[in-house]
């Protein structure tokens, strides 16, 4: 039902209960590592520049020792394909590992909930605070939370733009109030998106906006590890009476004591005992919660656990199955391919354009001259003085403009080459030639291109 001025049908916010356990520690570690990388990487230096910088105006991407050009788009495409195959691999193996542990939505939401906890306390205090009327304490706590959130979001936006504009320069510009309009805009844009996604919308993004949440079930099969409640063991659920202590034998109850902890810790607000649901982001908080209760009750762990549909149904379950091998092999091949392509990347690339005005020129000396424009891209970060040779011609000479050509580091250098060959030593008409440049400082660094050389037909 649409209500005016609100985007929520029910304004009740999910306050997930804090939980401790193996999976929660794994997620915390993942959050610290991933956010650590995000916030630290732009500050690292490599030689005289930022180690990772996507320089849009210069159209060059620097990643550690590598410089990528628009011509290297293929690597980016390859990387995206690898990411896609990896998603298939991990989803087929163990469901939504990505969602629960690595997705930026989860990672930043976790960080925002940590900040919320600092300002407002644990779950029950937060629920109480939300219900309480506005008073000094509530205003103070909510203000602290907003200050923490907004500062964190702004720092996130600043870091994001720091990947595109040298981050130290960016800091100086902010301090001097001389930030460019686009830089200011993108910092605010990204900050706002972070605040909105991780602070306000949270699990709603996964439920209503994420396409992966909807199609991931297509990558599942009956041997995929998913988080499941063991209905046969748990039901009939029920709380234990104090009289009977921890025993459940007389009451004919299952192992589930219906403590609701698995529901309270769930960040998307579902009850895992109702089965696999598309809202579940596989954060495994319910496993941690249930295991801690099972420990207290001295029941075996695993009433809620990672298992397969086949295992639940009592059938034979095979986690390492053809699908996993095929995805895994494909992923491995692509990764090796990318590594190979990156390590054997050409430092020099050359395009050759023939002079369009004249096929050839006859010089007074009896030489025949053809003129070429060489466009040489030096992807490395060192200058390469060039030597030019030609395959397919006899007794040729080459005159270049400039006389001593140098392919400048990270630039496109244009060189005019006049190739001259005596008519008497070469047959008439057109010749297929290969023009080759090599670096004088590192002779194994070369580039070549095919072209045509014309002699008069007598």
């Amino acid at each position, binding site marked *: *039902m*649409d*209500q005016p001025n*609100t*985007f*929520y*049908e*029910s*304004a*009740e*916010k*999910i306050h997930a209960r804090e939980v401790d356990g193996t999976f929660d520690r794994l997620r915390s570690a993942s959050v610290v590592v991933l956010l650590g990388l995000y916030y630290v990487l732009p500050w690292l230096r490599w030689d005289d520049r930022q180690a990772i910088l996507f320089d*849009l*105006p210069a*159209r060059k991407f620097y990643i550690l020792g590598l410089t990528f050009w*628009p011509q290297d*788009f293929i690597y*980016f495409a390859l990387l995206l394909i690898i990411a896609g195959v990896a998603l298939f691999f991990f989803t087929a193996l163990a469901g939504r590992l990505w969602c629960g542990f690595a997705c930026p939505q989860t990672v930043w939401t976790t960080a925002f909930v940590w900040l919320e906890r600092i300002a407002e306390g644990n779950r029950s205090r937060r*629920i109480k605070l939300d219900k309480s009327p506005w008073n000094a304490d509530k205003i103070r706590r909510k203000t602290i939370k907003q200050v923490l959130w907004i500062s964190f979001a702004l720092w996130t936006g600043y870091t994001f733009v720091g990947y595109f504009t040298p981050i130290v320069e960016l800091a100086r510009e902010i301090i001097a109030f001389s930030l*460019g309009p*686009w830089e200011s*805009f993108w910092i605010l844009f990204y900050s706002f998106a972070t605040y909105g996604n991780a602070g306000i919308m949270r*699990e*709603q993004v996964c*439920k*209503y*906006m994420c*396409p992966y949440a909807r199609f991931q079930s297509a990558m599942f099969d009956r041997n995929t590890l998913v988080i499941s409640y063991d209905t046969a063991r748990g039901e009939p659920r029920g709380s234990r009476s104090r009289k009977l202590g921890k025993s459940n034998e007389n009451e004919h109850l299952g192992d589930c004591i219906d403590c*609701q902890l698995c*529901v*309270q810790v769930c960040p*998307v*607000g*579902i*009850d895992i005992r*109702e*089965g*696999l*649901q*598309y*809202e579940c982001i596989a954060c495994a908080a319910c496993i941690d919660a249930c295991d801690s209760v099972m420990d207290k009750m001295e029941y075996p762990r695993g009433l809620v656990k990672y298992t397969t549909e086949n295992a639940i149904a009592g059938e034979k379950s095979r986690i390492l199955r053809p699908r996993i091998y095929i995805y895994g092999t494909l992923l491995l091949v692509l990764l090796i391919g990318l590594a190979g392509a990156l390590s054997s990347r050409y430092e020099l690339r050359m395009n050759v354009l023939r002079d369009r005005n004249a096929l050839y020129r006859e010089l007074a000396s009896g030489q025949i001259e053809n003129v070429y424009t060489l466009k040489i891209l030096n992807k490395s970060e060192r200058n390469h003085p060039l030597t030019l040779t030609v395959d397919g011609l006899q007794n040729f000479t080459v005159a270049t403009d400039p006389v001593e050509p140098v392919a400048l580091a990270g630039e496109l250098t244009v060189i005019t080459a006049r190739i001259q060959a005596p008519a008497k030593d070469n047959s008439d008409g057109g010749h297929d030639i290969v023009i080759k440049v090599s670096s004088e400082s590192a002779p194994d660094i070369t580039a070549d291109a095919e072209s045509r050389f014309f002699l008069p037909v007598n």
Partner: protein
Amino acid sequence: MTTGIGKNTQGLPEDAPRAWRRWTRRAQNIAAILWPSFLAACIATAVFFGYVDPLDLDAISTPMTEFSSLTGYAIGFFFFWSICSLSSLLSVFLIRTSRRPDGTHRTDTHH
């Protein structure tokens, strides 16, 4: 398989299992229009500017004005985003106004 969507959450105790927020249809529409088009626009921008330098575009398009490459990238991104949003808008409109299997219109009643 149950989802719990659409269950009434009013009047439940404090620790009710389904005390969760649910977006209105309007909020869902806005998200379904802006978000997929944002993703598509990111891809379009990356591919397009992978091959085209915005300064080259500036040189051949608007002879009277000059803009920086950052402005060029931003114009490109928002251009793609708006075109993609238009496409999403039409998709959402067509889905929301279609007839249900039982013959009623989706716009007739709220779910």
